[in-house]
């Protein structure tokens, strides 16, 4: 079978994440086969037939028999068509693609997750992986922000589930808020620095808008995090997902197969073309 031809899958459930529903989480089940096994940080190519294909990080954590979950913000042609899709509709899925967070190497370490907006989607896969094998990791800290309280994704996990996990703390912030928010109002990198985490034996994993990642990395460096202990996951235009179409190179690396997960040390040696 041609690896570029997707498998037909059915949307089983659609959950709006934000008040304006510009982010929705789709539960997807392949029609003809089991869900492939995947690691936190990997992505899949999703098709709306007749519209096209785009890469989307897998936000669920692999569990045999469980559907795939994708949290998708409506930003372009394919994501727009996905947002028009209804439960029961067919889409195409192929994957899993790309590298992943090196969770095995991180066993015993403390992990600091820093997310902004829809950037929490790939981190959610990782966070739930760590939560499920809680004993394998040290302290877990999540710093997460969105433009406003209405734009926070995965509210059930943020407010109910993750704060209950032993040795895990959730720190939320928003860029701007009205009277309905009594939490922190600050940009993620500022809030992060205010909270000031120790870099000792800690890996910082960040994902969000490019500008947030840039300032977050600067803040982490000021806090003493070494370049190889700062990890991020990149987004870029892709066509094939398998290293063949030439699209997504940054220098001699292809985000689709060498990434999307990179350490800041790796990124520093590449051209700033992302």
């Amino acid at each position: 079978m041609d690896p570029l031809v997707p498998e037909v899958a059915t949307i089983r459930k659609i959950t709006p994440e934000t008040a304006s529903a510009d982010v929705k989480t789709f539960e997807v089940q392949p029609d003809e086969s089991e869900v492939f096994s995947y690691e936190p940080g990997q992505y899949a190519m999703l098709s709306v037939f007749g519209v096209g294909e785009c890469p989307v990080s897998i936000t669920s954590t692999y569990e045999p028999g469980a559907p795939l979950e994708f949290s998708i913000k409506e930003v372009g042609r394919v994501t727009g068509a996905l947002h028009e899709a209804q439960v029961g509709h067919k889409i195409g899925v192929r994957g899993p693609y790309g590298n992943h967070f090196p969770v095995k190497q991180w066993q015993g370490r403390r992990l600091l997750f820093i997310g902004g907006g829809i950037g929490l989607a790939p981190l959610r896969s990782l966070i739930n992986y760590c939560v499920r094998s809680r004993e394998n990791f040290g302290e877990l800290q999540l710093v997460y922000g969105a433009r406003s309280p209405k734009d926070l994704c995965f509210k059930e996990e943020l407010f109910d589930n993750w704060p209950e996990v032993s040795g895990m703390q959730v720190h939320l912030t928003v860029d701007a808020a009205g009277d309905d928010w009594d939490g922190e109002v600050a940009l993620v990198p500022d809030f992060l620095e205010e909270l000031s985490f120790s870099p000792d034996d800690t890996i910082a994993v960040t994902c969000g808008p490019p500008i947030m990642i840039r300032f977050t990395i600067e803040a982490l460096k000021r806090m003493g995090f070494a370049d190889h202990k700062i990890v991020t996951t990149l987004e870029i235009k892709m066509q094939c997902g398998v290293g063949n179409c030439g699209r997504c190179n940054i220098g001699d690396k292809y985000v689709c197969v060498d990434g999307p997960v990179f350490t800041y040390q790796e990124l520093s040696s590449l051209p700033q073309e992302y």
Partner: protein
Amino acid sequence: MKMAAAGSLLPLMEALSESNDLWAPIVEDGQVVFGRWKGESLPDNYRVTDNSPKELLLPQTESLMRFEGVYDQLDIKEEPIEGPKVAFGVRPCDAAALDLIAEVLGSDDYPDERFGQRKDSTTVVTLACDEAGEHCFCRAVGGSPASDRGSDIMIYPTDEGYLLRAVTGAGQDILRQCESALDPAEGGDVESAAADCEDIEMPLAEEISPDGVTEDWHRVFESPIWEQLAGRCRSCGICGYVCPTCYCFALFDDLRGNSGVRFRGWDSCQFEDYLLMAGDHNPRPTETERTRQRFMHKLHYFVSRWGEYGCVGCGRCADKCPVGIHMLAAIKELEEVV
């Protein structure tokens, strides 16, 4: 070893075409292109065809699959791949380029199914060069006018006629099919015929060399030459279309009513929308970054990934670029900055 009978390749081509889908340099609208053979002799004095034979393995546009339905009752059918072909009169640079693309599209992790099937079923009959063209520089990038890389059969022109040598088993099988069109090459010396081709004059390959020009790639990347080179670029993409080693492709859907096709077509890193993303973010927004990407890819990124230049020195970009931005110009500029 065999020799083309009567010193002409026409009987061999006729014999080959009897049981094969034969492709060769042909004249179309006054230009020499690589196309389906129509029964004529090879054009006189052609150097390289306007288009490269890469399109036999990676067509300019092809459909990957057909589908019925959009959101509902979806039925997908993969598009079958056409039958075997013989590519005749391929130049050594172009044959090597097919091998070079296979480094990427044939790599172990995710081999490109369609490219791989076509590569396996295409027999490449290469005609070594007895003269270099105006823009030829294969020797400067590790190639040779007599190279058998990527070829199943080599044909060496000599004063007495054409000497043939099978490079692969597939080449041997095809030669056996056409025995009647060939003579035994008694006394013919294939090694000296190859050496004669090997040694042809190629002034450009003496003049320019990309070796070492990207050693300090950070400095090369930041060099002002890219802006100067790119100043005239029209983002037309002809460089990538004629290039035998450019393999970038895009996927796109065409929907008519309820049935559609997913196509794959060549793309070019010189196009503005190549990396334009939803939300209007573009990591390579101007001709400067895009021009740099093209040459950095062939002279540095490809080297660091695959251990050789992503250029075979065919000179088509120099032939075709309407504003003179091509590999020769880039190498000359780079030699000056390093």
